[in-house]
């Protein structure tokens, strides 16, 4: 039994973090169908890669999981609670979710250590502890010597590491990453993927990674493959790189 299969068996008995039933999302008054009835469960601690070509609905799915948008139909629950009827989605995003974006999206007028503190404004962490915590997170991603640098003075890989540290600012239980290596060279991409894999293992977080690259998806314990707004495959990652 390989490691991925073992993880899958463990996940089957673990707490369900996300549960989607017939999840649909339409845009432009129903003319665009981004999600066409998606069903899945994601359990605590799983590392799930959502793969598929551009426009298949994987980013829309990530938006639903992060409560950045509401589904048009169907249901999506987080730990048994409906995300559509959630009263305070901002609090959910702040306390439960860490986001990593393809384009990093660091604030240009703030240094690395300040960028990491941005999500902490909505946390219960005392103000005096914020900077210390941000420094610890930057150390964890290997940026202890770049803490006071502005994003413009950092490489793409360094910026993404700051973004990863920022995503961990409020100790979320779920990490959502949208093409986190999409804007990086191969060396930086490997470093970032190793870092994310390590963080997932160390922190026991649920990790959902959106990518169009199956070689990246192989690092996950489970792959959800999408096409035209539907899930066409949900299972162990492929052992060899191939075009989905």
């Amino acid at each position, binding site marked *: 039994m390989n490691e991925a299969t073992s993880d899958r068996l463990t996940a089957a008995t673990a707490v369900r973090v996300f549960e989607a039933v017939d999840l649909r999302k339409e845009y432009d008054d129903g003319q665009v169908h981004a999600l066409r009835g998606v069903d899945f469960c994601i359990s605590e601690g799983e590392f799930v890669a959502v793969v598929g070509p551009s426009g298949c609905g994987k980013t829309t799915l990530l938006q639903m999981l992060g409560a*950045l948008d509401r589904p048009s139909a169907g249901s999506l629950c987080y730990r048994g609670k409906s995300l559509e009827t959630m009263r305070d989605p901002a609090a959910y995003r702040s306390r439960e*979710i860490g*986001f990593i974006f393809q384009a990093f999206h660091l604030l240009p007028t703030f240094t690395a250590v300040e960028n990491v503190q941005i999500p902490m*404004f909505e946390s219960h962490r005392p103000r005096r502890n914020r*900077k210390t915590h941000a420094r610890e997170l930057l150390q964890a991603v290997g940026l202890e010597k770049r803490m006071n640098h502005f994003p413009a003075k950092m490489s793409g890989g360094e910026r993404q590491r700051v973004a990863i540290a920022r995503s961990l600012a*409020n100790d979320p239980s779920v990490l959502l990453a949208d093409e986190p290596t999409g804007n990086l060279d191969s060396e930086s991409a490997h470093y970032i993927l190793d870092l994310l894999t390590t963080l997932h293992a160390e922190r026991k977080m649920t990790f959902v990674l959106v990518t169009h690259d199956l070689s990246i998806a192989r690092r996950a314990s489970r792959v959800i493959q999408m096409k035209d707004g539907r899930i066409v495959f949900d299972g162990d990652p492929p052992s060899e790189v191939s075009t989905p």
Partner: protein
Amino acid sequence: MTFSAVVARGLMRRPVRTGLTLVGISIGIAAVVALVGMSRGFVSSWTAGMKSRGTDIVIHNMRGSVTPKPFPAEARDRIAHLPGVAATCDILVELMSIEDSEMMIVSAREWGTYCWENLKLLAGRLPRDASERAVVLGKTAAETLRKQVGDTVQIETEELSVVGIADGGAVVENGSVILALPLLQEIMGSPDRINAIDVRVTSNMDEAGMNRLCAEFNRLIPEARAEAAGEHIRHSQGFRIINAMSWGTSSLAILVGVLGVMNTMLMTVFERKQEICILLALGWRRGRIVRMILWESALLGLLGGIVGVGLGTIGVHLLKNTAAIRGLLEPELSVKLMLMAVAIAIVVGVISGLYPAWRSSRLTPSAALQN
């Protein structure tokens, strides 16, 4: 890092635009400080002039016009005997161009009354009697006209000798050309006409007593109106026009400032649309986004207010020494006025930020994932 640091950093994203907006709002606030300071200074300077002479009540006819209308000098005889009246002085005061000075106060006073007592001679003497064709210059008036004792000064077509230079204890007094009443009546071709009666009341009279006395004066002299010294300026048509113009001009300047700040903050929201979406995606509540925009615009207002008060103060000091204003008034730049101006600037900032803040609150966090 504090929330205020986030707010300040937001303004520093576009330092040139922030600076230009600051200039816009500070000009509006400078206009408030300068114009309102000048108009208030007009009242306080004239009030101080009255107080320096020891005048408690002024009987005048300034309500319907910019300058006081004349009325018969005999009106004084109707009230001089009343209990509570310690002394009276018939006055004829005009604002007129004298030689090179475009506007100067010419203050003709009944000879031998208390209104001459406050003049402390710095040089020369007072006129010998009411018939001497002479004037005393307040010290500022002497400087403005560049006159010394022994020179002559031309009022209308008359050449009068400068016999003394005096310190009257107030800006208006020091900026005046002072002469005996009959002389100016003759020059103006208005014998037996005056446009004010200064009244000094008995020393033990309280405010209620003064009000009763004013009511009695108003009954006996229906063609004029009695008011406490200073109030007559505040209630005059001239002051009301000046005050209205000051606030009108200031309001226009402030409106320009509002539009400037609103434009800046709207541009900020448009430019930072994705940044705001990122903040929402990172868990910031909409209320915090709205607060951030409002605090930024309020901070812009505060800074504009502080700079504006500084500019206004400098402007007023430059204005008060111009030939047209020198000796007429001392601008009133009180701490209260400055705080009010800064408060106006902050309110302007907040009001200007309301619409941009509302726009920012309508952004959706999903845009953060649209690269």
